[in-house]
């Protein structure tokens, strides 16, 4: 685990309205060497995308309080400034993979999340 903000570190935005899950994911990805921005709701994600540099990847929960993650993916993919950012969806939905693919997400992970699988998927999407 390194605290250095090297230019090579990739930035991942984690979006989930469950604080413990956001915290756990931040730890998992941080341990794997990524710079993680934790976001609790859809509005915060949009605000971040407008104000900061585009992230390298978005880890997005499918059902957020207030807004459906699938809608967010559709909006991101429809917008030329965000359409190239890979989106990895996470969900407890057993058919989540299909739902995520239909919405236009680049990858999917079922909850509960296996750490090894998470790290492998993220790495693959960032390549």
């Amino acid at each position: 685990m390194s605290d250095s903000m090297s230019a090579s570190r990739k930035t991942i935005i984690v979006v989930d309205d469950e604080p413990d899950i956001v915290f756990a994911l931040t730890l998992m990805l941080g341990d794997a060497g990524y710079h993680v921005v934790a976001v609790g709701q859809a509005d915060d994600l949009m605000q971040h995308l407008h104000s900061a540099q585009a992230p390298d990847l978005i880890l997005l929960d499918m059902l957020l309080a207030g807004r459906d993650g699938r809608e967010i993916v559709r909006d991101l993919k429809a917008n030329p400034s965000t359409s190239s950012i890979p989106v990895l969806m996470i969900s407890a939905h057993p058919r989540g993979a299909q739902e995520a693919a239909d919405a236009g997400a680049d990858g999917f992970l079922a909850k509960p999340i296996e750490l090894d699988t998470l790290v492998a998927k993220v790495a693959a999407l960032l390549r």
Partner: protein
Amino acid sequence: MPAAHAAPETTSQARSQWPAAPEHTVQFYADDDFLVEQISHFVYDGLTAGETCIVIATKDHRERLEQRFAREGLDLIATCEQGAYIALDAALMLARFMTEGSLDEEAFRRVVGGIFAQAAKRPASRPASRHSKDSRLRHVRVFGEMVALLWAGSDYAAAIRLEEMWNELRESDTSPPFSLCCAYPMSDFASEAHEQAFRVICATHTQVIPDERYTALADPEERLRAITLLQQQASSLAGESAGRKAAEERVRISENLYRHLFEASTDGILVVDPATHAIIEANKGVADLFGTTSAQLLGRNLLRIGLFPDQESGEAVWREMEEQHLARRESLEFHMEDGQLRYVEFVGNRFQANSHEIIQCHLRDITDRKQAEEAQRQLEVRKDAFIGMASHELRTPITSLKAFTQVLQRRLRQQPDVDPQVLHMLDRMDEQINRQTRLIRDLLDLSKMQAGYLALHETWFDLDDLVRETLDTVQPTTLTHTLRLEGATQARVYGDRERVGQVLINLLTNAIKYSPTADSILVTMQGNREWAEVAVRDFGIGIAPKHQKRIFERFYQVDDPQTSTYPGLGIGLHIAQTIIERQGGRLWVESSAGNGSTFHCSLSLLRLDSLTGSDSHRSDRQPGSAEAS
């Protein structure tokens, strides 16, 4: 009439019908030739007796009578000149005392009485008839067809009245004595309705002579036979008539019954004219449905009473009724007069009724059923939402637990001098979390199966790959058993890969669980062109035959005092079998107590719905999202 009178018997037969006394005779006849023959005798007898004969007949009958006399050599011109034979047209005579369609009695007496008085005053060449009221007057003999003309024109009352007027004239002192013969064709009395009038006609005459079918019979025995036959025919006709009346009564009762059923039916019934689309009958049921009255529906166009959503769909129904004689609509939606929404099931038939084409439409009110269905649908949407939410709520804490456990495992493993027991405890926590995850998944699967919408995501996949992957996943979870793999199917299967994997995991974990003293599990694969089969064999306690079918039942627990009891929800095999059967496969067990068990999972390679080659997503129903994140 020389020829006619040549045979004495015939003469006596013929003459016997014409009485010597002044009579009012009626002659019925079937055939015109017979009538002409009879009248020729009647007139000839009169001429022979020195009487004046008057024939008031149709042109046809007069001409044929004259031809008949000519054939017999009678000099009719001379007879006329002597005033002994007077021929008059029946229709013209009738017109002389008919005013605006009714008989003028005064005119009758004047016209007819005047002619008769003249005829009677003819100078006598022979002594006058002994029946004469005045010996200076000649007896007059009349054949008249005016009553028959009235009868043929269906003016029955006038015909009867004229017969009475003839009788009044015969009895009056002002008229010379005369004998009168009327004739009616029997065919004019063919109807049952004429029975009463026929009796009156007979009653107005002093003598009635049947038609030739009776009078032509010379032998009294033959006449008796004829009478007997007629009686038989009469009673047979009476029976027939009674039967017809009974049938008519049955028809009337049946019509009343139909009318009652039509009116009392709670189903709406409309009868429609196929030519105009106009409603010609509407019962109370249909009026109630529309919130109006039957009268207000009559005459309206079926296609424009708001029953069909638009003109086009109404015309489609109409075409079906015309071409296929039947149109059916499971559910039609329309608004009552007061705007209330109603649903009806519609059945329209076109058929023949009493040689008329009609269209009959039945409308059954299904509003209550539709509302119940809608309530049920809403309930299912809520149930669906509940399952989704339950899945989310149950998995969220597990997700956090799992994530933290894994972070801890990783971080601690990277540190030196970590207590191995701490690492072991974390491993156990991780495994228990996985177990909890599976239990939650099973419970949710069961809920979905019960609700009828376990979704399948079907694709083509390599079965051997899936089996190897599954073994690789399950092997690390056991320290006691070695999972051995034999054979191969080399099959590409069309099905839900993830769900088939779930079934294999279930079979493998069961095999490990129920063979605690064994050290291996044998997985064999085999297949042909139609089937691919994976068998999971354990070397454990086995399953007694009585339990073998029941272990696939929901919540079934093997409870046997002879063997150890294993806890569980009793739903894993039920879910596994449902998943396999939903994909057209089979899941069954072969076992004997003490000798282990083999679970066979067989998948069909011949799937018709897979011929398109595309992936499909299906479920028993199509509600919204069954689960959420």
